């Protein structure tokens, strides 16, 4: 088992005064791919947003430890600079900000051992071209405004492109599979598989098994009504297909 990357310890979260997460525990080690599954409204998105520190998510109990540091009280940008990444389910449009400028600004925030990592424009371009080719993204993408007028598939590809460029230690991908056709799904899954190596952790949020046909998780956690009701290996995802969440929740 690799080094512990992310520990979610008895996490309780409220959104607008309403309890959403009610004591979630989860641990991700280096080299592992985890999947969090569950029905709509189970709190899957709240979980990953809380890990990144969305101001909407009020932590009322428990803690989030990333690479040995308690990040529970940290601002979102600080968590990101330490190597946490969230691929958004519905990334917002930022009109007037080009993808290229956005990526360059994001790259400029990277830290290694707390020190800013400088990257030359040339290195940036070379890396960008390579990752874009991996994802089948054309050059015209770069001049467009971030997510502005993007199709669902384009948004998801941009999320994965950012993950590849920023090289986070822990990537949480919130329904990155939704809105993708089968070819795009294969491309994105391939990129995630290549990215997941021995030194990083990946957590996929999904409520379909579709993505898991292409990305094999080491652990599957089933979240229902703000609690993890079942954990298991990759087979659990297949069981869910026949059993369904309600029955699982009832059994729990």
């Amino acid at each position, binding site marked *: 088992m690799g080094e512990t990357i992310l520990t979610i310890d008895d996490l309780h979260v409220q959104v607008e005064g309403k309890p959403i997460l009610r004591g979630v525990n989860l641990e991700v080690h280096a080299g592992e791919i985890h999947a969090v599954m569950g029905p709509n409204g189970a709190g899957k998105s709240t979980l990953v947003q809380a890990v990144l520190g969305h101001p909407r998510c009020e932590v009322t109990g428990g803690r989030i430890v990333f690479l040995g540091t308690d990040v529970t009280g940290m601002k979102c940008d600080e968590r*990101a600079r330490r190597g946490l990444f969230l691929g958004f389910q519905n990334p917002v449009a930022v009109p007037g900000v080009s993808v290229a400028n956005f990526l360059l600004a*994001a790259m400029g925030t990277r830290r290694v051992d707390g020190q800013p990592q400088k990257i030359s424009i040339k290195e940036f371009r070379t890396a960008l071209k390579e990752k874009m080719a991996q994802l089948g993204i054309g050059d015209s993408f770069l001049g467009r*405004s971030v997510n502005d007028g993007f199709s669902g598939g384009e948004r998801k590809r941009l999320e994965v492109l950012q993950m590849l460029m920023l090289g986070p230690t822990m990537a949480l991908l919130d329904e990155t599979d939704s809105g993708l056709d089968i070819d795009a799904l294969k491309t994105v899954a391939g990129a995630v598989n290549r990215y997941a190596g021995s030194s990083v952790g990946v957590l996929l949020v999904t409520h379909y098994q579709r993505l898991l046909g292409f990305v094999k998780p080491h652990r599957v956690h089933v979240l229902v009504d703000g609690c993890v009701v079942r954990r298991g290996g990759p087979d659990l995802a297949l069981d869910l297909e026949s059993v369904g969440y309600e029955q699982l929740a009832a059994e729990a």
Partner: protein
Amino acid sequence: MTMPGTTHMPIPLGSAFSREALEARFRDEPDWLKTRRRLAWERFESSPWPSRADEEWRRTDLARLDYRGIARLGGGQTTMDGAALFGHAPESCEQAGPRPSRETKFTALNEAFAEAEALVHVAPGATRLASIVRRGGEAFFPRTLVVLEERSEAVVVEVEEDDSCRSGLCSGLAELRVGPGAKLTYVRVQVLGEGVGNFDTIQATLKAGSDVTLVVANAGGQLTKQFVEASLVGEGARLGLFGLTAGARSQHHDIQATIVHAAPSTTSDVLYRTALRGRARSVFVGTIQVKKGASKTDAYEASRNLLLSKEARADSIPRLEIETDDVRCGHASATGPLDEEQLFYLMSRGLTAGEAENLIVEGFFADALTRAPGGGELGWVPDFVRGSLMRVLEGRDRHG
């Protein structure tokens, strides 16, 4: 007679605002010009201060201004390239020099004390690139006339700047006469000092088939009252007006844009973007008039305001005055705070709250800013405009 409470009190003026000071200052000028100044001064003295009863002055309070401390009128520095100094030949008197469509106390004062009047005259079919950079003294009076003859083309960039934080006055007048088939891009960047009261008129007349793009950025000054007026008098004339306004502290920007469609098949596209921080306040009144006979007019006006603090306030007031059928006119306006989801998205990529906010604000200005000419000799223009706006708005890290 005016009723108490319905007019602005006159702005207190010092002895620099006098006929004696005017005559002493311009003693060596030719007689015709001295006469013009004296007549303008007399009109200034005899005309009333703007009244709050006037709808267009209702939202701007002049009572805060006090010009008793101003010792000298005029005396700025003007650097021109591609423009000529007007005013040294009497025969040019009639045609040269901008004329306001409506005189106010401020335009009369402008005519009385104007220095370094700029004239950009582009001959038929010719092209011109001109820049006029004015650095003000404590009171200054920019005056610009741009004349484009038939089928000529020009890009004119005019900057008004001043480093002083003192109480100051700027009263400007720019007139753009655009001939048939001519094409003009006029960029104005106002970066006056923090204490300046700025009273400004930009007016354009568009003849048949002409094509005019105005990019008007206001970033400086304590109080700005700006009239932007465009008359599309020739068939098929096209106008794009792109306004960019940044305000912080207790800055007040009151901008009144009036587009008059007086000929058939004319097109106007007005786009204003305003971002405010602190206790800044903005007013944008955008009026589209379609005169009788101006059929097949196509006019659209949009304004958006971004409020970066709870205390900032922006009002957008669209007006459509349509006297003809068979026209297409529309307007849209929206005012709101910074989008928290955009902020979270950018911060989740490692940008600090301040960096994220700056990026969002730059993006907010981008669509209007792309209308400013760039490239080649003008490569500095978009960056200069963006920098001028962002300097006003930057400097905060929200949560830190």
